[in-house]
């Protein structure tokens, strides 16, 4: 089954409109919760049962995250949605914002109700102008229909939701950097603990979830946690949006059950372009270590299977590479990205990402030295695990992965000052 949760209205004409969303039962769940005054604990319990894990990439159980907030603690609390979607290869949240924004709004209101928040922010990636406009339009419709504002549907519950357009920094997808950015500060991750559940936006208890996670909430509550869990496999409940791109005939976003074999996903994406050989797959966004093609064809798309293969499912961004790709060039491009996007706060990432990029770039440009390969591994290892946020790990991961599986291509560059792929 495809498109069961977040993209379930995709077949409708202009599905982003309130009336269309409501024609498929949109806002019914919220209405029921507000009318029946469903105890928040029940909602959180249902989310826990669903096995929903954070869809932004880290895969932390959503229900558990919500349960960290003390609902009855006095003072302001916040719900924040992370639509910063900056991981190279990821473009699934964009489609939720474009085609099903109301389901996200409904999910956020329910989340706010569950933790007792009265204010929410959706932090949208700076480059997403069209999705931002769609989301703002949805907010307007929802406000007019009484789903946002004061005393929602006469329940006594207040909730206002704001869209916040980012400034274009990848690191602002890191949840605490995102909070800093909303506060108007330089987007730099905070040292944790304290976690946002205790010290979040403006120092107040905050839950911050990915777009896809929050957009899944209405369906989880409507159909029940176990229904959602059963869509997927053990430890990977539900369906998931995969953004599959690269050398493909039909790249795009596909919502499929967790645990679907990669081969099926590849088929949906039309197979490798021109019938060429599948060389490698980066299964979870650019920071996930690369997996050789043959190995990937045997894997299923769920957290455990990909982790066992030495990589990670991440945000579900699958980058497919055929045999025309030079892996040195690929790594150079990715290293450049992390070098540019490091926030500069922690020493290993600030200094190390630039070092990695420069060494890889030298190798790519025929100026590699034999000792550079060990140096790369060593520098990556000195970044990994030693920074405040995961950006350092993300920059180090691809280096280790590439050198593990494609060391010969790097060696060829060093020995022959030219590319193995081009040479063949």
């Amino acid at each position, binding site marked *: 089954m495809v498109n069961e949760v977040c993209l379930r209205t995709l077949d409708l004409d202009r599905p982003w409109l309130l009336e269309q969303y409501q024609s498929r039962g949109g806002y019914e769940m919220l209405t029921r919760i507000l009318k029946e005054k469903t105890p928040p604990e029940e909602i959180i319990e249902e989310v826990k049962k669903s096995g929903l894990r954070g869809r932004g990439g880290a895969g932390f159980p959503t229900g558990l995250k919500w349960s960290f907030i003390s609902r009855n603690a006095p003072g302001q609390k916040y719900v924040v949605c992370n639509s910063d979607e900056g991981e190279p290869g990821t473009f699934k949240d964009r489609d939720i914002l474009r085609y099903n924004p109301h389901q996200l709004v409904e999910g956020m209101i329910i989340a706010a109700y569950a933790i007792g928040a009265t204010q929410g922010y959706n932090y949208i990636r700076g480059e997403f102008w069209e999705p931002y406009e769609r989301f703002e339009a949805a907010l307007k419709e929802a406000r007019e229909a009484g789903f946002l504002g004061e005393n929602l549907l006469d329940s006594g519950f207040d909730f206002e939701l704001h869209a916040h357009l980012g400034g274009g*920094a990848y690191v602002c997808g890191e949840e605490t950097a995102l909070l800093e950015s909303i506060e108007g500060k330089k987007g730099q991750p905070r040292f944790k603990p304290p976690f946002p559940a205790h010290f979040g936006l403006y120092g107040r208890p905050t839950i911050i979830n990915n777009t896809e996670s929050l957009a899944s909430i209405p369906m989880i509550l409507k159909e029940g946690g176990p229904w959602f869990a059963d869509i997927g496999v053990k430890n990977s409940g539900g369906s998931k949006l995969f953004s599959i791109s690269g050398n493909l005939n039909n790249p795009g976003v596909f919502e499929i059950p967790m645990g679907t074999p990669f081969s099926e996903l590849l088929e949906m994406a039309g197979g490798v372009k021109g019938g060429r050989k599948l060389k490698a797959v980066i299964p979870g966004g650019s920071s996930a270590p690369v997996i050789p093609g043959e190995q990937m064809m045997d894997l299923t798309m769920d957290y455990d299977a990909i982790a066992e293969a030495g990589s990670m499912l991440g945000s579900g961004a699958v980058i497919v590479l055929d045999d025309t790709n030079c892996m040195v060039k690929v790594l150079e491009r990715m290293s450049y990205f992390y070098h540019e996007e490091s*926030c500069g*706060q922690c020493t*290993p*990432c600030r200094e190390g990402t630039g070092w990695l990029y420069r060494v890889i770039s030298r190798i790519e440009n025929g100026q590699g030295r034999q000792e550079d390969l060990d140096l790369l591994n060593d520098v990556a290892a*000195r970044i990994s695990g030693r920074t*405040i946020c995961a950006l350092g790990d993300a920059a180090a991961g691809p280096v280790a992965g590439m050198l593990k599986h494609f060391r010969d291509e790097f060696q060829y560059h060093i020995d022959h000052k030219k590319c193995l792929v081009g040479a063949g």
Partner: protein
Amino acid sequence: MVTIEVNGRELKAKAGDMLIEVTDEAGIDIPRFCYHKKLSISASCRQCLVEVKNAPKPLPACATPVMEGMKVFTRSPLALAAQKGTMEFLLINHPLDCPICDQGGECELQDVAVACGSDASRFVEGKRVVPAKNIGPLIATEMTRCIHCTRCVRFGEEIAGIREMGATGRGEHMVIGTYIEKSIDSELSGNIIDLCPVGALTSKPFRFSARAWELTQVEGVAPHDSVGSNLHLHLRSNKVMRVAPKDNESINECWISDRDRFSYQGLYSDDRLTVPKIKQSGEWQDVTWEVALDMAAAGLQEIGEGEQIATLVSPSSTLEELYLAQKVTRGLGSNNIDYRLRQGDFRLDGAEPAFSWLGLKISEIENLNAALLVGSNTRKEQPILAHNLRKAAVSGAKVHFINPLQLELNYTAGQQLTTPAGMVQSLAAVAKALGATGEGAAAKVIDKAVADDDAKAIASALKDADKAAVMLGNIAAAHPDYSILCVLASVVANASGATFGFLAEAANSVGARLAGAMPHLLPGAKVAAEKGLDVMKLQKLPRKGYLLLGAEPGYDFWDAGLTRNALESADLVVALNTHTSPALEAAADIMLPIAAFAETSGTYVNTAGEWQSFRGAVKPLGEARPAWKVLRVLGNLLDQEDCEYTSSEQVRDELASLCEGVMPDNSVGKTESADLQSAVDGLIRIGDVPPYALDSLVRRASALQQTKDAAPAAICINAEEAKKAGLADCDSAVVTQDGREATLPVSIDANIPDGCVRISAGLAGTETLGAQFGEVTLEKA
């Protein structure tokens, strides 16, 4: 308390403390750059990574709270690998310019590199270069050396209370600097020089003048404000090369003000007095000490009548100097000695507290829940004390000011902006709101006052607070109705249960009282049987002979014009000064060069009543001599008894025995006169003393004189009043006060209340004017 184990050693620690605090306490060294005990935790440099048993990754000691049973290894292979890894990263883009770097030899990066660095670099790429920025006259930058620890950034936000430094750019392109070519103007800015672990921020005046290893470090006490910050003086070849803070948790923590840090430059100004001089037929001649002292003694003796001699002393003088000055004066049969050179109202003499003080310890200020400051620009007057007050305000204390100037504050506070006469009424209104009636003059003004909402807000803030204080600052001390303000402030404090205190003006204002440098007080703050005349009367009723100690005519007196008239009409003016000036040369007959700050031993009593003695760090410049020695010899030449001191300690101990059992006390008596001397028909001058005009030394500190706080004299007036006077911004105008004139530029300033014109005192161009607070007229030049 929890027990942890570090490198096999058992340590007791407070639960929740960060690991690095515990290891620092225990003397276990963990390298660090971003961590600083007084700043928030950034955890970003990653140099303090250590191994914690059962943790999957090395953890930053600065951000890891201790927990019971925690086992930590700071030198294990994992910890060392992590520390070495960070050091390698820090060094790849750091220039290897230690030989030409001012931080060389006292550089934290250098030190840690010796411990954790490698002898050769694996980095063969090009290094990052960042252009240096001009951020003002005090701090030199070399931003290529910056390692992005952000201590300077956090200092601005958290301590100085003004975000001057910040990080722009991402990743490797991240640059620490000011926002668009701004200068650093905080009065505490120099502390970022100490905070910077590398040579990115260094002292501009000190730059390239000495190497750290050539310097000798001795202790000192700051000579300007009444806080008495503890100093380290760095010396080479009998010269003070620079000044740094010495930690004293109960006074200045680890900070000092820019004034205390950079004023040493004034020691070596061109107009330093280095030989004794006498005036003969209007010409100054260098003479020997013998000749000069003989002449001084003979001249003073010639005057004959004691009451015709007046001794005017600077409150920046040491306790020993002040004690001997009063001893010599009283030995001449005169009680005419006063240190209150910038006071304008003496109606309270006799009823004011003898040993007045802050009322609490400096470190207690941060625990206040409410404070009312009357006539105080404490941020500029006592920057370290203001930092403590800011800490209180940031943690919720309600701070109010009653001032004739709108202050630029670095925290939220209530500011009542009013004329000098209005200040009295505002304070009386607070007293009224508290239901106080007062006695004498206070009763009269309180009776007339109206308790408006502002007054009620202040009253309830003071009353509701657990710990509150009412404090009088430098502007209040110079106020024409100081006596009434003092009584009212005391009434307000009593009625609200607040502590009453004085933010003393100078380093030894409190000490001067103990030393008996007042016409009605003897050493030990004992009431004199025979009272002399106060400093105002000593000028209004000119004496035949004047002895000046560290006091500069034209700059250090409440009414510059009055001083000049008095001194010029005298038969003999003997000046013991560190520096000369045209005004001094015009007034004096004999100039005796005395040792300045750092050149003499002595003692200061700070505003919290703490005695702090210090030794002379360098020999006095030229033939200058410590003033206590000069006064001793003068006493000998005048055949005075008991003047055989051989050390300043001996002088101090003698005074200390006289002060035994004397406790600080702020109880104020009453005064009958309720005439408002500050009530004028026209414009009144607000003659505050800017921070870098306070005393002879700082007025000559060249770098400080280039800062924003050292703006030249001007007529500051609000737009409305300027319009009335027919003046516009940048006009030149003639200000007339007591028939004396000065021509100054006009500066439109919204921080000045109606009816007032701010013409700061102590600045070049104001020597000819009158009282710090007095009626003036303006006319376009």
